[in-house]
């Protein structure tokens, strides 16, 4: 039986959205208040959904202790209470929440090769969120949403 385990984590960080190749006026026009020079912060929520067969001995897709340790090591330690613009991962790309979501998915998919489907959702505020799944074996719900979106 294949099921999906979902877990939500909190992560607080600051960022500033701007492009070095734009003028100040262009940055202001594209990014608005997100381009304010000293940055701003969010309490992000990172939702991780991992797919896999339920182990008949444990009843689990993955032991939660192991998932928590992995997310702590790969995501929370590097990003929590940091200024995203200063990190190597965002040296050449804007630390938008789209890019943060993709970066987190990339780190976790590398650290969890046993996952049969991985979806990462990052909520930047209670009103906006982003989802990313790099493989085709992600949860059927995501596939439905993508399919619906293409119509």
């Amino acid at each position, binding site marked *: 039986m294949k099921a999906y385990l979902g877990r*939500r984590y909190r992560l607080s960080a600051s960022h500033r959205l701007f492009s070095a190749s734009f003028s100040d006026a262009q940055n202001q026009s594209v990014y608005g208040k997100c381009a304010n020079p000293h940055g701003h912060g969010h309490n992000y929520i990172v939702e991780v959904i991992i797919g896999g067969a339920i182990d008949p001995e444990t009843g*689990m897709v993955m032991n939660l202790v192991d998932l928590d340790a992995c997310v702590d090591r790969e995501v929370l330690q590097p990003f929590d209470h940091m200024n995203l613009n200063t990190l190597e991962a965002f040296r050449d790309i804007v630390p938008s929440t789209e890019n943060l979501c993709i970066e987190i998915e990339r780190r976790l998919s590398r650290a969890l090769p046993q996952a049969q489907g991985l979806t990462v959702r990052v909520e930047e505020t209670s009103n906006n969120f982003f989802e990313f799944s790099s493989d085709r074996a992600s949860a059927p719900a995501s596939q439905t949403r993508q399919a619906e979106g293409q119509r």
Partner: protein
Amino acid sequence: MILLTRKAEFSASHYYWNDAWTPEENQRVFGRCANRNGHGHNYTLEVTVAGEVDPATGFVVDLKQLKDVMEREVIAIYDHRHLNLEVPEFKTAVPTTENIAVAIWQRLDSKIPGARLHRVRVYELPDLFADFYGEA
């Protein structure tokens, strides 16, 4: 096709234990969840059904009927019960969030008039949940 989700809540106790293992093994794998006196949660169940909108009613499924099926097939059996001791499917399966999602799917499958079950999501805590889509 459109998806429709209905929520319900139930409160239950459980513990994690595999009889084939030693107490030390159970403790190592399941940690605090292996405490034999059990512990409890307020679970939130989300049932998502898929179907076409009936042009006469504008409904995918009659919400009252869906609520009644969830109440009869799941809530009446799980709510304020000890899952290991009082719910038959957990005499053998460990009542993890994953297995609860599978068991609820099996209880609801083909019992919802006019719609197909799409997903069962069970929240054990606001930050911990399991999804089951009926996949083998």
